[in-house]
């Protein structure tokens, strides 16, 4: 069986800006640096990492919303390029972080949904209004909301409209970019439950991007941890959380503030902050913050993903010899 989505060696580079004299090489930032993974139909993959690790850029590159500089993306075994782009567009949709900015402020909720149905000819014209209402009910709103403008809705309601819009194309894949992090805790739980519900009802595959690991634990079958443009650990969610292998993953999980009545701050925290992607350290990009860094970590190429326990980790502690 081919995977629904396959990403191989994906790279996204941005010009770093600034003036360059003629002949001088333009400075580049590699926001995504050789990422590969596969996603099966109906599976949910979590992409986690701190801000600036390239998870959002990766998501946009997968959906061909950002130009990639190397590597390829295969959707249902077919390379996504200019000619096959429409296939991806009809089968994948995105949900955004900022619920307000994700909706056109000058369109009514009903029109936002109807537009998708019309463009993709999902239902005959006379069924559009009924289908819009169906979609709104599906995400926990009512037909009454179709007449409203986004500005009159709350953040949680806007996010539901955003989900309804994504569902309108009847996609096989949904990419959710930090879609609950701008919401209040109580609303956050509602949206997560909604996603869990529609995922199982519509047999959706999902890429769920988050910086909040606890949310990922709830929602995802598998998880990829990113640091500075690379995947540093990948595996089944339960395995990664119960026995994280990469020192970075270990630190991330340790730092999650749990509601433990006897809780206290974690010991041995990570020092410092991620360096600027403009001048990445040589070797393993994590070594300046790594409590277990060895001499071989400080030079050469970045380590590649290698089996480590049940999962895979890009760390020289596992597998010893450098690739």
């Amino acid at each position, binding site marked *: 069986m081919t995977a629904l989505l396959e990403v191989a060696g994906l790279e996204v580079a941005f010009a770093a*800006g*600034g*003036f360059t*004299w003629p002949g001088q090489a333009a400075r580049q930032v590699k926001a995504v640096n050789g990422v590969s993974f596969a996603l099966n139909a109906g599976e949910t993959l979590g992409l986690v990492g701190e801000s600036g690790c390239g998870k959002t850029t990766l998501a946009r590159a997968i959906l061909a919303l950002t130009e990639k500089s190397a590597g390829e993306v295969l959707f249902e075994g077919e390379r996504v390029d200019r000619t096959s782009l429409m296939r991806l567009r009809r089968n994948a949709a995105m949900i955004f972080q900022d619920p307000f900015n994700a909706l056109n402020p000058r369109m009514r909720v009903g029109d936002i949904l109807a537009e998708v149905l019309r463009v993709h000819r999902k239902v005959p014209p006379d069924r559009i209004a009924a289908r819009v209402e169906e979609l709104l009910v599906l995400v926990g709103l009512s037909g009454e909301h179709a007449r409203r403008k986004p500005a009159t809705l709350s953040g949680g309601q806007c996010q539901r409209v955003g989900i309804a819009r994504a569902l309108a194309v009847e996609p096989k894949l949904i990419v959710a970019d930090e879609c609950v992090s701008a919401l209040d805790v109580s609303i956050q739980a509602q949206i997560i439950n909604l996603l869990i519900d529609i995922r199982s009802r519509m047999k959706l595959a999902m890429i769920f991007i988050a910086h909040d690991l606890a949310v990922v634990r709830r929602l995802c079958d598998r998880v990829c941890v990113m640091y500075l443009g690379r995947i540093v650990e990948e595996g089944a969610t339960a395995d990664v959380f119960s026995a994280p292998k990469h020192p970075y993953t270990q630190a991330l999980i340790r730092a999650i503030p749990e509601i433990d009545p006897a809780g206290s701050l974690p010991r041995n925290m990570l020092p410092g902050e991620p360096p600027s992607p403009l001048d990445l350290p040589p070797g393993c990009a994590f070594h300046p913050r790594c409590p277990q860094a060895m001499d071989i970590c400080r030079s050469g190429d970045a380590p590649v993903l290698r089996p480590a326990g049940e999962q895979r980790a890009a760390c020289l502690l596992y597998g010893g010899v450098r690739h």
Partner: protein
Amino acid sequence: MDRFRFVLYRPLQLLPVLLGISIITFVLIRSIPGDPARLLLGTKSTPEAIARIRAQFGLDEPLWVQYLYFLKNLFNGEMGTSILYRIDVVRLIGERIGPTLSLVLGSVILAIAIAVPLATAAARNRGSLIDHTIRIISTAGLGFPAFWLGIMLIILFSVKFDMFPVSGYGDGFADRLHHMVLPCLTVALALSAVLTRNLRASMIAELSSDHATAARARGLPEGMVFWRHVLPNSLVPTINLLAVNIGWLIGGTVVVETVFSLPGMGQLLVRGIFTRDYMVVQGVAMAFACAAVLINFLADILTAAADPRVKI
């Protein structure tokens, strides 16, 4: 000082703009209907005389050759000879640049001197009678035609009170200063309306900014919050506005020089247009455009100095 590296390379980036300016002036002036040679010699001129003049000024060559000549001359610092005044345009501009320069400088200084206190008073007393008054006056000020304002000032200060001369540039420093007061005031009043509105808006935004709140939370008295934190931050957008408006300001001086009969470049331009004095119009337009480019460049440097975040 990596941020100021642009001072070195920006002139390179400005080259295409300068080239574009030269093309536009050249094309514009050459499309003026009417033969300047005939105009110069009068209707009764002989064809031989016309031909001689045309050859003398290079008017018989094809247009693109004329442009290349024009460019070559530009590099040598020559902009041709005025058909009317019969002297070198560069020298002519050199003679006329004084009044224009002092008009622009004087009015910018005066405008700032008017706008900063007004905007401060309005922003710090937001919603009060003072604020509303200043807002309405400055909004009305946007619509004051400079030429009319000049005449009104003449009626008031020259005709009625006989405090300042009606027109002219004067001799000697003190006399010139005396002559420049009304023209500068005219331009400054019009300019200060825009500045006041803009400065007031950015001051109000800065007064309720997070960093001003933080400064108050540290116990800084309101005056200190304003002068140390609000004012420096609100000046940054105003510098940009001033730079953007400099073109408009120079346009204003053209009219004001006519009103006050100041022997500046604006007056030269208007007269050049009426007399179809190619070389003069071309030279003055170029000089004005280059001045505007230069001023914008200076404003960029000033902005970079005022705001450490700016990367140009």
